[in-house]
């Protein structure tokens, strides 16, 4: 294939740019474990009310001081609401849905995951700034989708 010199330069440069993008993703994935929420765990969405964990979704502190928040998304609210967590400590969210697909987005942070019925989403976030955050549902879930909000309260760590 006869390719003009300038075009050949451009093609190498474009290839280099893409490798740079991918390199950044691979490096942060490998070295800093920056990964998308990709937990694989199933749960019966029709039996959540009697489920040992999701029957009474709540914030719990583990022995090592890390915090686990179990959240059930349903038309058109999140439970528990509000969610209270400490600042500057890893908080693991475990999220599922009792009906259709919902989104769980803590506005102003990178906590953003799907709540899919039958599956448990799990991801860990550390909130540095104490304050009140809006939790919005960002997947269409019915006529009152826009009303589906919750509150996250990040409390300053008591010394």
């Amino acid at each position, binding site marked *: *294939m*006869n*390719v*003009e010199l*300038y*075009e050949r330069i*451009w*093609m190498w440069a*474009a*290839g280099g*740019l*893409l490798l740079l*993008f*991918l390199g*950044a*993703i691979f490096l*942060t*994935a490998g070295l800093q474990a*920056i*990964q*998308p*929420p*990709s*937990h*694989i765990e*199933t*749960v*019966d*969405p*029709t039996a959540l009310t009697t489920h040992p964990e999701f029957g009474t979704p709540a914030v719990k502190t583990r022995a090592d001081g890390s915090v686990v928040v179990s959240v059930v998304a349903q*038309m058109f609210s999140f439970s528990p609401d509000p969610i209270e967590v400490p600042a500057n400590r890893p908080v693991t969210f475990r999220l599922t849905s009792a*009906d*259709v*697909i919902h*989104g769980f*987005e803590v*506005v*102003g942070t*990178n906590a*953003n*995951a*799907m709540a*899919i*019925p*039958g*599956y*448990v*989403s799990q991801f860990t976030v550390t909130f540095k700034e104490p304050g009140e955050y*809006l939790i*919005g549902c*960002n*997947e*269409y*879930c*019915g*006529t*009152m989708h*826009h*009303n589906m*909000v919750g509150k996250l309260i990040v409390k300053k760590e008591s010394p």
Partner: protein
Amino acid sequence: MNGRHSLAAAHVGVAVAAFAVASAMGVLQALSIADIPFPHRSESLYYLAVTAHGVLMALVFTTFFIMGLGYALSQESLGRITGRGLAWIAFALGLGGSAAAAVTILRGQSSVLYTFYPPMQAHPLFYIGATLLIVASWIWGGVMIASYLSWRREHPGVPVPLSIHGMLATIILWYLATAGLAVEVLGMLIPWSLGLVTKIDPLLARSFFWWFGHPLVYFWLMPAYVLWYTVLPRVAGGKLFSDSLARMVFILFVLLSVPVGFHHQFADPGISSNWKLVHTVTTYAVLYPSFVTAFTIIASLEVAGRMKGARGLFDWIGRLPWGDPFFAAVALAMIAFTFGGFGGAINAAYAMNSMVHNTAWIMGHFHVTLGTTVALTFMGATYWLLPRMLGRELRLMTLARIQPYLWFAGIALFSISYHIAGLRGLPRRVYSASLTGEYGAAWHGLTRLAAVGAVILFLSALSYVVVVAATWIGGKRIPAPAFEFAVALRPPTAPGVWDRFGLWTVLAVLLVAVSYGYPLLHLFAYTRYGSPAFQPF
């Protein structure tokens, strides 16, 4: 109507009609999000409008336009359409199916958006109607391939015309993509909506949807590229800079555009992060053919400017026919795509994706890509096609000249506003940006700017529809101008490696099998409970 192109014209006509209805639905949404009051504003109307806009734009307008363009190119470049009768049957199936689905949407029975994620359940006719449209497109693909094979028998050893090369690549990609959709709709959604099974696995259905959903955007983009490569340089008065690289680009899309769907599911459970990383690699790789396209097309335009006597570094830009509605539309579409492409590179990086996933940013993003790069190219192409298909002169030429610029101005306001609102966290697909009524302050300035953009877009859409209708009904009858395609600087003399469709198809199928086979089969190792149906609309 010019008899040779009646098939193409009928398809383009349906596309424009769908576009008209969808545009009205679009402007209603932008007003609603910004809390600008209008008569009959309600939550259910809003979600109905989102569904109608998505289905009519993303599935009906695009598919019918692409089928029409394919028939026109087959007639002109191959001198035939093999299986006209079958093509008309497909047209009727597609039209009937689209109409059936549209009726259930407009009656409020299928407000499930164009992604129709279960366990939200639409009316069975919604799924069946959409299936008929896809079946129609499969028949169209078959007719196109039959036309090519018939031509090939008469022209052994000759390279296939570039426009047909691009359309054949589009069709192969479409069969690969719709295989995933067929599994979802025929295997899961239709039996479930008819009550034959009670439960459905939402994640599995969603994964099959995105198997289809991302190559769907290349199904739209590739015919636009066909127009950029084969028509634009000619309209600009120049030559195609590189024919062989154009063929490489089309083949790279066949290979790379299907195994990328997990980048729509970065935030989903049930798919391991390593497989998401695999799809990230292919997602970046599929940017590559667009980089190559940018060079080839801009170089072709420079050739055009220099053939008209331009000197110096940038004089050639001013010598291009900016007053020609086809040229202006495509040139602006390409400018939009530079922004859209880099936005896509941001979405594909999952650390950044988690800031913008399912926010208004995404609405901003696909309105510069699908909504401008593709749609504006198709609008410009309509101006180019109509006189050639109908044997009528374009009417309201001034309006046609202004229309692409109006669209560009509208999309700039609309998309920039939503990109920023998304970065500030505005969730996607909300009836009102104030959500429960308390949260509008952070977003309302931006959503109102976006609404102004949407009104400009609507005026532009209206101009397009008026020009098309006026030309169709009352355009002066003229001898149909020839379909003139761009000549390459170095035209190919024999079919090359990029013309070996069989080989590339096999490779593409293997790539899809690897990138989807393991992660989906892996799900079956878990106890999956399934969900009953919900209709919260």
